[in-house]
């Protein structure tokens, strides 16, 4: 075990998988210059053939990763910021998600498309997207969205080893957070959620960086006598619905915290899952704490309040739990 940051966890996972399997290579915009610190020393260790800078051509190089995967390679594509996936929707949705299916299982596409959720830092609307829900709506793509360094490393290693295409959404609000991370073989299976904090009054399901806000809120709620359980699905596709339902059946209340826009968010899908499958256990409406359906402005004064915050989660918890009153003796 060593305490390392989220970014160092990404670097370790990539490094170990490239050492383990010579079919793994990395390509993307500015990976050789190590723009975010996830490819430190990679060119020296693996050579420029396996650490490839690409043209600014997302549809081209993401599609090329699909082609390389089809002929036996296991590419990791670094698309840097997740907003840059939009020019590549063609290749992601029409080629990468569908080729295995449309050709009746003849195609195999083991590749990972990494990108970060770059919100909350005055980068304005075109650089601040959290677009994973759009991809949850496209069958054929597995999706990870970890909230801590340990999960990041374990899930990224699993993603590289997966024979299915995986999108890795890396929350930049988690980048510098340190965590105890096992060295070497630390692989977390895709589709397994995690209980980050146990509680009995309300289940808070967090997505990506939303987990950390939820944990802070849970600590604040504890002061008020509300015991919150925090669940991190970690993988959005496949989604560990059973873990979420088990928790809600225990607490009877649910809040979904998701930094994505509200409509058709991961929070929406989780809320619907709860209502459809655990309605009888619910003692209050399921609430979503998300980013409203407006664009993200540049000015920090009006950007920051748009994201899920401790205060908004605490308010939501008070609403579903009700104000605790000491029972008369």
């Amino acid at each position, binding site marked *: 075990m060593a305490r390392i940051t989220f970014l160092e966890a990404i670097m370790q996972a990539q490094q170990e998988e490239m050492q383990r399997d010579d079919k793994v290579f990395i390509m993307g915009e500015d990976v050789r210059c190590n723009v975010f610190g996830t490819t430190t020393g990679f060119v020296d260790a693996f050579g420029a053939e396996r650490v490839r800078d690409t043209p600014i051509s997302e549809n081209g190089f993401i*599609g090329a990763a699909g082609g390389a995967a089809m002929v036996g390679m296991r590419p990791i594509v670094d698309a840097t910021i997740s907003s840059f996936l939009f020019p590549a929707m063609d290749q992601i949705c*029409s080629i990468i998600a569908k080729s295995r299916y*449309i050709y009746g299982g003849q195609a195999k596409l083991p590749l990972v498309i990494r990108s970060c959720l770059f919100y909350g830092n005055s980068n304005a609307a075109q650089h601040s997207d959290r677009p994973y829900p759009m991809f949850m709506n496209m069958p*054929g793509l597995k999706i990870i969205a970890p909230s801590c360094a340990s999960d990041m490393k374990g899930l990224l290693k699993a993603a590289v080893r997966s024979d299915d295409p995986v999108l890795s959404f890396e929350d930049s609000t988690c980048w510098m957070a340190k965590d105890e991370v096992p060295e070497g073989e630390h692989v977390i299976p895709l589709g397994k959620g995690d209980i980050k904090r146990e509680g009995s009054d309300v289940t808070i399901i967090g997505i990506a960086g939303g987990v950390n806000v939820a944990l802070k809120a849970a600590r604040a709620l504890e002061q008020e006598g509300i015991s919150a359980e925090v669940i991190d699905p970690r993988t959005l596709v496949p989604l560990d619905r059973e873990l979420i339902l088990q928790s809600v059946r225990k607490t009877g209340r649910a809040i979904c915290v998701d930094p994505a826009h509200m409509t058709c968010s991961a929070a929406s899908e989780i809320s619907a899952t709860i209502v459809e499958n655990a309605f009888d256990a619910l003692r209050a409406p399921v609430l979503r704490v998300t980013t409203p359906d407006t664009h993200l402005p540049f000015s920090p004064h009006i950007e920051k309040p748009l994201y899920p915050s401790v205060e908004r989660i605490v308010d939501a918890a008070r609403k579903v739990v009700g104000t605790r009153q000491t029972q008369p003796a």
Partner: protein
Amino acid sequence: MTSTGENDPRLEKYRRMQRIRQFEAKAEKIHADGEIPGALHTYAGMEASGVGSCMALRDDDYMVGTHRSHGHPIAKGAKLRPLMAELLGKKTGVCSGKGGSMHLSDFSMGSLGETSIVGSGGPVTAGAALGAKLQGLDRVALCFFGDGASSEGAIHEGMNLAAVWSLPAIFVCENNRFGMSTPTSDAVAGENVADRAHGYGIPGVIVDGQDVDAVEAAVREAVDRARAGKGPTLIETKTYRYGDHAVNMGRELTPRGPEHDDWVKRDPITIYRQRLIEAGVAEADLDAIDTAVADEVADALQFARDSEYPVFEEAFDDVFVDRLPIPAEVQAHA
């Protein structure tokens, strides 16, 4: 099967063009009868472009094609039975009944897909060529695309990537004069798609798409160049689509002028048959090939008709490696 010419590449070229023509003639007929669901985009008139290109490839070279997908796999040497079964939506189809007419892709023949999003094969081709290069294989990847696709960014991105990384790729623009109903001259700036090669610093070659030998020679040169590590080539085959964008639509999308008859006079199979006869091949041998191909097509259709449809659960296979869970309420009504 004819007893002659199994190993004669000239007769093989003729046979593959005949296979495409006869396979599609049968498909068009049974599509009109309602036996094939969905749309049917035929390749008739363009056989020399596909066969000439594929004859220059090895079996283990890669190929990516288009929604007009019947010609490419047959040109590369695929067996007819799984192709016809796919058109009928059967379990024994080359794509297990999941792809249909726009996606006849036989991976055992080096195909990496026939894609119906116009231009989307460009990046895949560059990636396959990169994958071959990184694995030290001396394989090349060939991308078929249409004149319509030449206006798509994906084609540009694929060619730029292949050129900047000097990848073993060949881009074959099959210019059949129409993008759906729109004449190429209304959609493509500049006189020739091949001229765009200069922008990438790679060779751009224009070839008579009705002459299978000319196409083969041009692609062979590009393949040699690619295998030698000298990078990609853009080839434009000037060809012609006999049918409408899709057949049996009940109305004509693309009214043809008098040039239609001129193109039909330059039918690629007729031209090649005449050339073979002039070179001393007996007409009887060519007739025997025609008959053998008719038998193959009939056999393929019988196979397809005798095959089972996929079962409902298979709709959930191959989204991922593991079958998806099937929702009970959907299953109950399946």
